[in-house]
């Protein structure tokens, strides 16, 4: 998924995208309208002042009082006869164009100054009162300065409210996301629907149904594995046991070699059945979350060594361990399968007189498991293939079914462990190493402390 499509599908982004720009535009238009109306009102107020002066002059003239000769500071005026002869005030002051009403307004430029005019026409005279535009406090700037600030603060607050609103509105979704993120891939219990918003509810219901189906399938699979195990193992146990007993009976002495090959055949059958079951057990769909927990690698190593000491002695091998305490988040049963297979390979392929060592501990904070032998090793060209199911290295000893390392690989994947196959010390034998993800720092530290 590209970053572009990710942003397009983010509800938060979409909400903010659809809300914030139109709101900002709306606020700007509001500011502009405020500015325009304020300008008109301020101008009207100043014009009213000019009109009042003009009217008071007119009143004086109509009452026969002397023609006014003084105006308030900053105000220019001229009083002329309707014929155009100046009676008082500044000569040359233009009059506003006449209109239907006796009082009209206009703009003029007199010797470089922009003037606002109000002209009042009475039968006796034409009275024009003017004011320099520049001497009027600029209504625009004034209004702008005050309103702009208020509007700006208002805009900010609204944007903040929208942002907070979106954040809180999406909170249930984020909580759901966290709930899903916190689950491991194996977790199949239904999601909690209580905090889920109604809009997302159908989605979660569908997911929960899917989880339920999947968990059911996994359970059926693991039941099948258990049933198969029982059905296969009981007769195999009977056959193997009977053959072992038979081989020890003196009467069977002449048939010894035939019994031995029969026994070997049943052993291979037993091994294959066990390996297939181990592989099924290691399968991702059957290993749900149950059985995973903090597991001590050292005791797993001790168990596997204990179980194989006799076999190693019979094979003339020196089996040993080099382990320090280490904890992993693992399924102990699968870990036993994994170690059992590595051990089985090492004991099977290392010639008598060889040395097999199992190791565990921490490598740069990450728990590891390792089995090393000094047998024939695995040629570098074969290493990628040995993890394939049923693959056997050409010319290798009989008795295996080619599933051992496939099981190891499957279990390693289940535990997010990195599997590496290398040559052993002095380029002899094989060393198979599993590097697990680091456990929580506190656990690793305390284990390290115990180790030191």
């Amino acid at each position, binding site marked *: 998924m590209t970053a572009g499509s990710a942003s397009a599908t983010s509800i938060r982004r979409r909400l903010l995208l659809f809300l914030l720009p139109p709101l900002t535009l709306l606020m700007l238009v509001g500011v502009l309208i405020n500015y325009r109306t304020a300008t008109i009102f301020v101008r009207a107020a100043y014009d009213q002042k000019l009109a009042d002066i003009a009217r008071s002059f007119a009143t004086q003239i109509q009452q026969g009082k002397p023609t006014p000769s003084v105006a308030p500071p900053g105000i220019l005026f001229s009083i002329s006869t309707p014929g155009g002869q100046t009676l008082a005030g500044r000569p040359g002051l233009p009059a506003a164009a006449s209109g239907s009403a006796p009082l009209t307004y206009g703009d003029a430029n007199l010797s470089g100054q922009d003037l606002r005019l109000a002209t009042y026409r009475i039968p006796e005279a034409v009275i024009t009162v003017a004011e320099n535009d520049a001497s009027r406090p600029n209504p625009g700037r004034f209004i702008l300065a005050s309103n702009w600030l208020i509007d700006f603060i208002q805009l900010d607050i609204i944007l903040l409210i929208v942002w907070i609103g979106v954040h809180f509105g999406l909170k249930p979704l984020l909580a759901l996301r966290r709930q899903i993120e916190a689950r491991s891939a194996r977790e199949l219990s239904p999601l909690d629907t209580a905090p889920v918003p109604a809009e997302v509810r159908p989605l979660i219901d569908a997911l929960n149904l899917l989880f339920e189906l999947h968990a059911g399938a996994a359970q059926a699979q693991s039941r099948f594995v*258990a049933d198969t*195990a*029982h*059905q*296969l*193992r*009981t*007769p*195999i*146990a*009977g*056959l*193997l*046991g*009977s053959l*072992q*007993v038979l081989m*020890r009976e003196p009467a069977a002495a002449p048939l010894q070699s035939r019994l031995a090959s029969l026994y070997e055949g049943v052993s291979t059958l*037993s091994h294959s059945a066990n390996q297939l079951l181990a592989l099924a057990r290691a399968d991702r769909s059957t290993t749900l979350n149950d*059985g995973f927990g903090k597991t001590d690698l050292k005791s797993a190593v*001790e168990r596997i*060594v*204990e179980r194989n*000491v006799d076999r190693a*002695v019979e094979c003339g091998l*020196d*089996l*040993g*361990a*080099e*382990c320090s305490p280490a904890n992993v988040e693992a399924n*102990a*049963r699968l870990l036993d399968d994994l170690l059992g297979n590595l051990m089985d390979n090492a004991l099977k392929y290392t010639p008598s007189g060889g040395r097999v*060592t199992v190791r565990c501990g921490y490598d740069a904070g990450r728990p590891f498991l390792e089995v090393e032998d000094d047998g024939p090793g695995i040629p570098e060209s074969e290493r990628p293939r040995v993890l394939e199911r049923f693959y056997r290295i050409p010319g290798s000893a009989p008795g295996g079914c080619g599933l051992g390392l496939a099981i190891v690989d499957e279990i390693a994947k289940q535990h997010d462990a990195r599997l590496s196959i290398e040559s052993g010390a002095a380029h002899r034998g094989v060393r198979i190493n599993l590097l697990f993800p680091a456990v929580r720092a506190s656990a690793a530290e305390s284990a390290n402390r115990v180790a030191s």
Partner: protein
Amino acid sequence: MRILVVEDDFLVADAIRRGLCMSGFAVDCASDAEQAAAALAAEHFDLALLDIALPGSDGLTFLRRLRNAGTHLPVMILTARETLATKVQALDLGADDFLVKPFEQSELAARCRALIRRSNLKSSGQLTLGKLRIDITGRQLYIDAEPVELTNREWLIVECLALNAGRIVTKERLQQAVASWDQAITPNAVEVHVSRVRAKLGESVVLRAVRGLGYRLDEPR
């Protein structure tokens, strides 16, 4: 030593019976829980091997019945179902051991001996291991009925190994067993004591060093 095998599969029961007879045990077979109950009521047994999947009342139910009746008879569960849950449940119900089918006859015989050894220890305070007789309460070791002189630390090592016969005893554990509260002991010193013990025990038992882990005391096979 007498063992009751409760197993409904004829081939398996027969193989176990013959195998254990060859290893010197007396063996009786029962094919379901009712037969087993009748056999246990009539005779004395030192150990019962119990299959889980029995017709009628299953092995775990039978085990619960035994333990509820206050029977201390050692019980080893034999099963083809090796889920961890089953194992935990069996051990919780009071099973003494758990063996998954198919198994080696030699492994079965060794585990049977270990269980009977432990149960005898409980009743008599004595342990028998091959030619060794270890009188835990009397703190005395005999080889072929001859008393063997041991220093205090050698005795502690023999005791610890014998109580865990068949299992690996780590060096740290021996170190703890041997160290007294005022005297620490180094791993090297443990090795020295173990080699002295080994010399005194001779060929009567197998004392095996497991590289990097510890020691294991076993009967000779």
